[in-house]
């Protein structure tokens, strides 16, 4: 029935005004919500974490504890800590990216001091990387050139105050507060005991043995688990450094599922280099499908043999690099 009386019209207007206000308010809420403040997101995340404080901080110890590694000359000076993918940055800040990219799972750490000199202390870091390849990746990508090999396990070295090693799926760092001899002895003792508790500490990675020995710089192996050389399709790429006599070059190899996909990956990498400014070059007497590309003053050579994709990266001397390539091809053929 249509409104005809003044008071109905007034009520109608009031009602419309209320609805209009509600509509404007809704629009304001939507606009404000669309302008997200990082502080809000962070505080929400913080309040979620605070309800699970056992994620980091003092935690119940697993079946065997880091403290059992400590010889009688060491005493615990902190409670064991544990960090996961969400909280790793709380311990090692921006370096967490390196570990996360290599499929990090968990970190256990604890500090110990010398009983006879509490001013000297060490911190044990045990990174659970999920498998030996991931552990080797973080080990190799941080390797110090001045490190001295430690024969306790295949992948281990020490520096003046620290020891770094791979034990199965674990990457272990033991950092000492000084270069003191007593501390160095304590570190070695801890690692020795750790090796005795981890039979897979002696697990070797077979791919590193595929590289030829001629000209190989010892202990220069590394593993990039993803986006090697900036190429998204290059995953699990092993590298090794070679001394060319008048310089060095970096050889690489990765294993595909079958020869067909290896050949395709070779073509794909060549196209990637060209798309990024590389120029195709010619060096004779290279393996079958080898592609040579000059890029940014260096020589890239990539080829496939069986399921392997291999080559050299950013070599200063193209001809010397070609020699490395041919040696590498021969080694890979023998391995098939």
């Amino acid at each position, binding site marked *: *029935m*249509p*409104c005809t009386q003044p008071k*109905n019209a007034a*009520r*109608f207007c009031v*009602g*419309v005004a209320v*609805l209009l206000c509600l509509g404007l308010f809704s629009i304001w809420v939507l606009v404000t919500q669309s302008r997200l*403040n*990082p*502080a*809000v*997101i*962070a*505080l*929400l*995340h*913080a309040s979620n974490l605070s309800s699970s404080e056992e994620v980091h901080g003092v935690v119940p110890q697993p079946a065997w504890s880091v403290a059992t590694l400590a010889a009688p000359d060491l005493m615990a000076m*902190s409670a064991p800590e544990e960090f996961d993918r969400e909280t790793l*940055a*709380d*311990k*090692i*800040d*921006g*370096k967490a*990216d*390196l570990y996360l990219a290599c499929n990090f799972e968990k970190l256990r750490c604890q*500090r110990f001091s010398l009983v006879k000199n509490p001013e000297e*202390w060490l*911190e044990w870091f045990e990174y659970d990387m999920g498998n030996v390849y991931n552990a080797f990746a973080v080990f190799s990508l*941080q390797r*110090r050139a*001045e*490190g001295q090999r430690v024969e306790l396990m295949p992948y281990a070295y020490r*520096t*003046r*105050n*620290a020891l*770094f090693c791979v034990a199965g799926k674990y990457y272990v*760092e033991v*950092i*000492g*507060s*000084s*270069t003191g001899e007593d501390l160095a002895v304590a570190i070695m003792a801890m690692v020795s005991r750790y090796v005795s508790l981890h039979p897979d500490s002696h697990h070797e990675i077979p791919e590193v043995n595929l590289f030829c020995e001629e000209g190989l710089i010892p202990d220069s192996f590394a593993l990039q688990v993803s986006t090697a050389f900036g190429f998204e399709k290059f995953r699990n790429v092993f590298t090794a450094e070679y001394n060319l006599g008048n310089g060095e070059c970096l050889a690489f190899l990765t294993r595909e599922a079958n020869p067909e996909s290896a050949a395709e990956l070779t073509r794909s990498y060549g196209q990637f280099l060209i798309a990024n400014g590389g120029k195709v070059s010619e060096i004779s007497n290279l393996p079958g499908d080898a592609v040579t590309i000059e890029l940014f003053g260096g020589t890239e050579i990539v080829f496939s043999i069986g399921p392997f994709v291999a080559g050299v990266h950013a070599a200063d001397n193209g001809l010397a690099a070609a020699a490395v390539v041919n040696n590498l091809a021969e080694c890979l053929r023998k391995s098939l």
Partner: protein
Amino acid sequence: MVFVTSFLEMGEGITRREFLVRFGSAAAASALVAGVGRTLYRPPSTRPGGEATSFSVRDFSVGPEINGISIMTGSDRARTFSGAVEGLGGIGRFIEKGDRVVIKVNAAFAAPPAVGATTHPELVAEVVRLCYRAGAERVVVTDNPINDPYACFQLTGIGRAAESAGARVVLPKPEFFRPVTLAGERLIRAWPVLFDPLREATKLIGVAPVKDHHRSGASMTMKNWYGLLGGRWNVFHQQIHAIIAELAALVRPTFVVLDGTVTMVSNGPTGGSIDDLRPTNTMIVSTDQVAADTAGAALLGRPLSALPFITQAAAAGLGTTDLESLKPFRDRVL
């Protein structure tokens, strides 16, 4: 529109009882909505029921007429630092009698001083001593570390060095943080900042080592202010260069000290091995933190193109990458 008209017509001939029932229902519904809104509302401060007012960090610089950089070479931190300050006209140009000084160190990690991941305690002690020699009323040393604050200040040696020189060490507590907004910027908006130690300060000095950093490329004087941020600061990691530049805009110190006696050239920011360090024997003191970091980049062997936060800060007018324009004082300690 028909619905609204019909709804309004229902009011005709309403009794008092009906009015009271409807009014009560409407009041209850409003109270319920208000209660839900109040429950969901999050104030901009980190404290429950905290202030909605945003704070700002005051400008601690001593003025454009004192603008320079001093680069000393030598291996003795105390001597190179004091020599560098003399090169800028002496501590008296910056610290006056009665000043309340805050020294913002890098105590981010519970690491020994030998690995170079934090401000060296010898340098902290000398900075404190020099401030008191100039007549400072009090000196506070502070940071919001990444690891446990007590362990950080203890194991880095910073706590002991600061206190032995007469400073007070202030460890962060939740109630020391205030929401700070940097006008015109997009990241630091109502973000919790370690504010209370700065509240009554009259001078602010930043002291940081030269370090490689896995994410930003380098950690030097501008990145040092990251240690004033509270909350989940790693949310900014995806925009690391922008946040460092904003921090340089947020914090205008009296001067900064960049310790390049040793430089962590790899595996930063935590390092771990002494072999990550190179003896570069350089101490930089500057009123221009962009210039200081530019000099530090050279110690790392990094071009400025690899450190966008420096060029971004310079482009924002926060300092200069042209060191020679500041007529740097250079000397060495034998």
